[in-house]
């Protein structure tokens, strides 16, 4: 059995319409695991700040781009882990375009997002040169240290 990108897309759609949060599929040497959002305690957006952030704020109203994790979608892609625990923002300011989208070409020092830790904004850089294949971390949500933010297929 082999899976095409179309097949994976179809499976994701099935999962989205189902009442399940996780799906694990194993067949021969193919293993596919899909997870909806976060498990355990329901994730909650950062509480309203008393003061606006010093560097930049991104409205929590921006639609969340939670995408299912497709761990095996591109085996050559590399995980870009979060360097800090904090609130991840995809855009520099409210209403502005995101730093990167899927398909973007990034250099090691390309800023891919911002992590807020108690009103302090920290730029996150790709750390790898290549093409963005996935954006996993939802906007304006808590990310843990080491959590995969995006995936990049290294150039060359």
């Amino acid at each position, binding site marked *: 059995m082999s899976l095409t990108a179309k097949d994976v897309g179809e499976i994701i759609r099935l999962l989205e319409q189902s009442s399940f949060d996780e799906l694990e599929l194993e067949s021969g040497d193919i293993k596919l695991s899909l997870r909806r959002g976060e498990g*355990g*305690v329901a*994730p*909650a957006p*950062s*509480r309203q700040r*008393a003061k606006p952030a010093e560097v930049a704020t991104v409205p929590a109203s921006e639609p969340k781009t939670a995408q299912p994790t497709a761990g095996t979608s591109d085996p050559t892609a590399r995980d870009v882990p979060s360097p*800090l*625990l*904090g*609130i991840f923002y995809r855009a520099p300011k409210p209403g502005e375009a995101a730093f990167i989208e899927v398909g973007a070409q990034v250099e090691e020092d390309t800023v891919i997002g911002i992590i*807020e*830790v*108690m009103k*302090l904004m920290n730029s996150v850089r790709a750390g790898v040169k290549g093409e963005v294949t996935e954006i996993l971390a939802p906007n304006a*949500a*808590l990310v*843990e*240290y*080491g*959590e995969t933010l995006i995936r990049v297929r290294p150039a060359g």
Partner: protein
Amino acid sequence: MPIRRILIANRGEIALRVLRTCKRLGIETVLAASEADLGSLPAKLADRTLCIGPAPSSESYLKPDTIVQAALGASCDAIHPGYGFLSERTALARMCEDEGVIFIGPTAAQIEAVGDKLRARAEAVAAEVPVAPGGAAASLEDAVAMGREIGAPLLVKAVGGGGGRGMKRVDDLADLPQALAMASAEAGAAFGDERVYLERFVARGRHVEVQVLGDGAGRVIHLGERDCSVQRRYQKLIEETPAPGLSDDFRAAIREAGVRYAQRLDYRGAGTVEFLVDMDRGAFYFLEMNARIQVEHPVTEQVTGVDLVAEQIAIAAGGGLRLSQDDVRIQGASIECRINAEDPAHDFMPSPGTVREARWPSGEGIRVDTHIASGSRVPPYYDSLMAKIIAHGRDRAEALARLRKAIAESHIEGVKTNLGFHAEVLADPEFAAGGMDTGYLPRFFERKAAALQEA
């Protein structure tokens, strides 16, 4: 304000200890764990675990902003800091106050008041709690005059120190000016505070501390005292309650002094007021106040039946004190051994690693607080506390007999532990007699070394 979800900002046995009470109370738990602790028992048992940073504590457990951000991001009502790490840093308590997150502990101002040892001493004087003769000197001349008044030997203590850190003993008053200069420079380097003060050196002292609970509005009760005199280099190894061999009057006086001290601060939450008992003079002096839950709190819980963590949470939630002094009944005696991953044969060097097998004791009157099971890891980044084995009995003799049996039943493979050392101390007639001074363990080691040489 009801507390529904707590961020536990700690690790090891105390993280699990707090977690257990939360589960019992139906409070959700979010554990803030470093990368090194993601596979730990508390991480497995918490409702949610957040990785806050890499293994070194300076990049994880010691970052107040990350801890508060984790609490906010996971919608926690409150933070329990445990002991150590950020439990007595004003930065965390203050940030919680600013962000509207409940800090399960005293106010930032109270932490500050007891963190400055000279200020803490002044509060003791104001509360009519005895302090050892001494104090701060404005000039070198003053210090020398004060030194003459106190008499040698005396101690030069750092204002920012505590727990045995930042102290210098002066045996000859002629050495005082030099000792002051050195202590001051060292204190500046170690604590960022050059201030030092003088205090009488107590040749034969016992470390006795009073457990208190305060509602933050001036009402304070005590839950008896603990004797923590079995120490090696100021590290407590065995603690017990009640403190053996004190007269009823002395015991009542020291408990009342602890309560008065906490009342003076309008203390909120659980705290411990430490005293040095001068055995030769039959007096006691205020040492310091620990504004947190203590490692040795279980012995108090065993004899009182009070869950101190639950009381901490209730007070933090605004429920005040649920107990009156008359509700606190002390029944029997309890002794605790701290089981550390360290090698007594090599100067108690830490022995981190993977625990191949862990067998802990059980039985009547035995409680084990531990996060270590077979396969658990003792990471090299943190303290080496693996477990606390606590015995309770109708009296000290029964508690001791149960503890001896419990230590003998314990078995750890994979890392070195001080279990054997505990077995030896518990078998020692001097320990069995009770009421030792803090010089007991050094004497115990000397005796052992002498016996080895003879053999």
